[in-house]
């Protein structure tokens, strides 16, 4: 054998070994391609889960009795069991069977384990989540849950159902594609995972960085302009669902779980004078605080979309008395959330002796979150109250790992994590905890966060109570322990009663401005919460209508602080539109409610466009501007996809905001790049929308219209300039005559995949609506947030409900399944599907018999 042949053999051997090793085990971020793409057992095997469901008998270990599951043609499941435990076990199995990827991704997100699946690109997200502490809260909550309690039992049985499916997938190899491709498979489901899911919802709905934005705004614009343009109370009050008079029964103690961490932190030294270190104080925000704010904002900026609350866009209303026809009461609900494929919702009905409920569930959580039982119906909107407080801790270089609180130096508690990373070594992370909560940064200043997600909230126990309630008293009593996320629960029952209550966590600080980062030395700590009897609520209002659309639920005379206009109540345009459409009406039926839910009338346009036209009439517009103005003249403020006036209005409003505020932003050097969502001038800055609308209609000579150091201007002059800019923008973008500038050419909706993989989502598709229409579309010109579920329930008799609902997407997350996006067309076209009855008497083409 020659040397050349020997080298060739060696090279062939090495190459073969490398190929086999790579295909068998992967390398770094490259998956084990041989296993992953094996036609029989790799990612291709997920096709089995995409086959149309057929009637069958399945063995589910852990069931006490047989369970029947009936699927409608859209895959909506009705579970009929002999007891609650079996019903929730079956629900766990169905969630895992149809939504395993979605629920596993969500728990990984909350537990800081996305990197294990996605690699080092997700490390920043994992570190953020582990700092924030959803996992710690869930662990503490589970530790405090008696295993024999109803909530404990439901969580255990639900987890058993999920694990039944995981065992089945392990034995058949029919995993969703993402796992075969990554070579990382889901671990067993635990009750803590469900509680983490609850925390993820809280984070998505209520975690906010607005106090940090306020700090940056104050640092640049100054306190006066900041509070004038981002006021606590907006100049024009929206319609509160809970009008005055209000009670002030004092302050309730902080929930016990929140106190636990504080009590665990004993002082390390006797009280003494603090060292001279950077700390927060009243007056202008110091530079270290802005550095800390920027550092935390950079963390949140790196998160995947939808993890931080951005848009307040849910609707729920109920009516009774003369307003409704053929029913004792009616309820409509459409929670607006990030729109993804699959949807956040999985529709199901559960029935067992003593249990009958139908509606939408969240995969990963046991229970129906929105729906109705035999006697009551409920829907939710986010309350939007401020429950995220940032504290600047007093620290000293001579005392590493300590902070000064209530006159003594305290040692920070440390929690150590090891983050598994696919294709890399585990990354260690240490999280420091103060009495306020986790330290989010030590850049500039040590800043910790005290937020709603750190509060244990027995949501499962509450939802069990709600599910079994049969009147408002029971409903209200069940919600007394609900803490997070704060929600407006709207109610209607079969005896014709309606109501609403904003259950949740309302922290009240002893001192200071909670919309800014607060000093952490103790004086500005949370002193207590709003007592349950004083939180916003109403029962059988004389107007026969109660409506929440994330507007401030109470009027200006409400005696407690619950948040500012920027943190972050809705301007109330949708609420006013709902009240205008329902209040005073007679004999509305489900179709009438549906027309309100589907309304794309923009109340702000209706308010401002007449002023704009008056301003234009006083100017000398170009022929093109005249043509454009002509379109607005006959416009009914409907944001229809074919409407050119709608495109003109939306573009004008953005340019108008810029024309007024951009000179101020530029002069003050507002660091927009640090947090575009929180600091950029846009229609999504609801405070700016509200103040500009108020000035335009009531204070057209407000000094803000005149740029700093520039000529004096009034609202009409700025409107004319902004309109000219808008026409120029649209002409450059869409060309042609103004009549051809259809809104649908500018605006679309998109439903990205939960895996973030391009091509697995839906859209973008030309769409009507905007941020202020009842049928909302949020996220800019390519909207990704809107009605995630539309439901209408009419109580036609005692114990008799007629429910209908639809959500964009389908019941299965498998793109190969006929139930992947089969409800999308109905949702898009404003059609509703009959909800399966809560009683469990469902009919459908597919029936599963689940056997112990």
């Amino acid at each position, binding site marked *: 054998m020659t040397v050349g042949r020997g080298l060739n053999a060696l090279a062939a051997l090495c*190459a073969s070994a490398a190929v086999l090793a790579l295909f068998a085990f992967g390398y770094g971020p490259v998956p084990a391609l041989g*296993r992953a*793409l*094996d036609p029989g057992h790799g990612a291709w095997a997920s096709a089995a889960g995409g086959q149309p469901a057929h009637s069958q008998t399945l063995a589910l270990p852990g069931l006490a009795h047989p369970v029947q599951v009936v699927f409608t043609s859209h895959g909506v499941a009705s579970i009929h069991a002999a007891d609650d435990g079996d019903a929730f076990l079956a629900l766990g199995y169905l969630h895992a069977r149809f939504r395993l990827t979605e629920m596993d991704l969500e728990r990984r997100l909350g537990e800081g384990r996305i990197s294990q699946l996605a690699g080092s690109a997700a490390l920043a997200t994992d570190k953020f989540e582990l700092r924030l502490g959803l996992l710690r809260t869930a662990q503490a909550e589970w530790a405090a849950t008696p295993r024999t309690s109803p909530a404990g039992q439901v969580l255990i049985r639900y987890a058993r159902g999920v694990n039944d499916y995981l065992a089945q997938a392990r034995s058949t190899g029919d995993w969703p594609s993402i796992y075969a491709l990554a070579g990382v498979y889901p671990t067993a489901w635990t009750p803590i995972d469900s509680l983490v899911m609850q925390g993820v919802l809280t984070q998505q709905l209520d975690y906010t960085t607005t106090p940090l934005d306020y700090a940056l705004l104050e640092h640049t614009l100054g306190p006066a302009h900041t509070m004038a343009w981002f006021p606590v109370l907006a100049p024009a009050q929206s319609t509160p669902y809970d009008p005055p008079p209000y009670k002030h029964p004092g302050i309730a103690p902080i929930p016990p779980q929140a106190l636990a961490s504080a009590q665990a932190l004993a002082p390390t030294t006797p009280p003494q004078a603090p060292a001279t270190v950077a700390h927060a104080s009243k007056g202008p925000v110091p530079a270290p605080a802005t550095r800390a704010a920027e550092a935390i904002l950079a963390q949140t900026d790196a998160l995947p979309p939808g993890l931080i609350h951005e848009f307040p866009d849910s609707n729920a209303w109920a009516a009774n008395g003369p307003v409704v026809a053929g029913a004792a009461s009616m309820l409509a609900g459409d929670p607006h959330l990030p729109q993804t494929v699959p949807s956040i919702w999985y529709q199901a009905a559960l029935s067992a002796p003593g249990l009958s409920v139908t509606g939408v569930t969240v995969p990963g959580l046991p229970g129906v979150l929105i729906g109705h039982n035999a006697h009551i119906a409920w829907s939710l909107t986010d309350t939007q109250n401020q429950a995220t407080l940032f504290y600047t801790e007093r620290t000293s270089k001579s005392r590493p790992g300590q902070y000064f609180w209530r006159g003594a130096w305290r040692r920070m508690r440390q929690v150590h994590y090891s983050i598994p990373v696919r294709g890399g070594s585990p990354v260690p992370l240490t999280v420091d905890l103060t009495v306020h909560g986790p330290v989010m940064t030590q850049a500039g200043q040590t800043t910790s966060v005290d937020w709603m997600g750190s509060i244990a909230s027995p949501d499962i126990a509450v939802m069990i109570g709600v599910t079994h309630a049969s009147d408002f008293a029971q409903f209200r009593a069940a919600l007394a322990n609900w803490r997070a996320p704060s929600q407006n629960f709207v109610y209607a029952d079969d005896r014709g009663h309606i109501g609403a209550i904003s259950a949740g966590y309302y922290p009240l600080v002893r001192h200071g401005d909670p919309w800014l980062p607060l000093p952490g030395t103790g004086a500005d700590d949370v002193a207590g919460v709003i007592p349950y009897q004083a939180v916003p609520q109403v029962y059988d209002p004389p107007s026969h209508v109660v409506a929440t659309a994330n507007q401030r639920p109470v009027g200006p005379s409400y005696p407690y602080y619950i948040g500012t206009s920027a943190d972050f109540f809705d301007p109330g345009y949708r609420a006013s539109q709902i009240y205008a459409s329902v209040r005073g009406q007679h004999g509305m039926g489900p179709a009438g409610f549906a027309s309100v839910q589907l309304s794309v009338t923009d109340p702000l346009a209706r308010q401002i466009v007449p002023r704009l036209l008056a301003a234009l009439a006083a100017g000398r517009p170009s022929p093109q501007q005249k043509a454009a103005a002509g379109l607005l003249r006959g416009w009914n403020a409907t944001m229809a996809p074919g409407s050119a006036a709608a495109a003109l209005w939306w573009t004008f409003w953005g340019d108008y905001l810029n024309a007024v505020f951009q000179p101020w932003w530029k002069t003050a050097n507002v660091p927009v790049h640090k947090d575009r969502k929180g600091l950029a001038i846009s229609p999504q800055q609801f405070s700016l929308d509200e103040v500009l609308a108020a000035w335009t209609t009531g204070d057209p000579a407000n000094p803000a219209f005149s740029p700093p150091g520039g000529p004096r201007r009034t609202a009409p002059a700025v409107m004319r300039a902004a309109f000219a800019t808008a026409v120029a923008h649209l002409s450059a973008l869409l060309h042609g005559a103004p009549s051809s500038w259809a809104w649908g050419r500018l605006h679309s909706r998109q439903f990205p995949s939960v895996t973030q993989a391009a*091509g697995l989502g839906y859209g973008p598709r030309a769409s009507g609506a905007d941020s202020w229409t009842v049928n909302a579309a949020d996220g800019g010109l390519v909207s990704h947030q809107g009605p995630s579920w539309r439901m209408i329930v009419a109580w036609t008799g005692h114990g008799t409900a007629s429910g209908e609902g639809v959500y964009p997407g389908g019941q299965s997350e498998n793109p*190969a399944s006929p139930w992947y996006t089969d409800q999308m067309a109905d949702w898009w076209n404003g059609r509703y599907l009959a909800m399966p009855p809560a009683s469990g008497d469902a009919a459908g083409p597919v029936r599963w018999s689940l056997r112990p």
Partner: protein
Amino acid sequence: MADLRRLGKRGSYRLGRLGAPSAAPVAPSAPHYPVWVDRHRGPAVLWLLAWLVTVAVLAAGALAGWWFLPFVAGLAAGVAAHYGRWRLRVTLPATVLGAAAGWGAALWWLVRRGLPEGPVAREIAALAGLPAQALAAIAVTLLVAVIQALAGLWLGRALTPGRGSR
């Protein structure tokens, strides 16, 4: 020097003829036949049948989870090429096509069974960061089989006693 002397003379620059004496007439070459035609062992149908059996084995192996079979097949082809005196220009395409056909047949079998492999292919492509087209995932899958087979073929040929490159 003789060449230099011819500079500028008539007929000195005809291509191919520079200074060379006339070649003796050569007999016309024999008609060209592919080498394997006159050197194969046994009838072609038999070889085709063997190839098809290999494809079937590869397909069955893939369905059984034996993803490494294309490598084994390539290795076997490399060794057999030595003893069967197969030329590389035959074994190489046969191996590549066999590996691709084996895994392709497995996918085809799944489709025949009613499994929705088209949408799954799109999903795989999208999750892998490729264009969300079924063809992309299918191509990458077949490529995995082909790469294995080529590595096996190379190893098989390298480990057997050589007779020079064919």
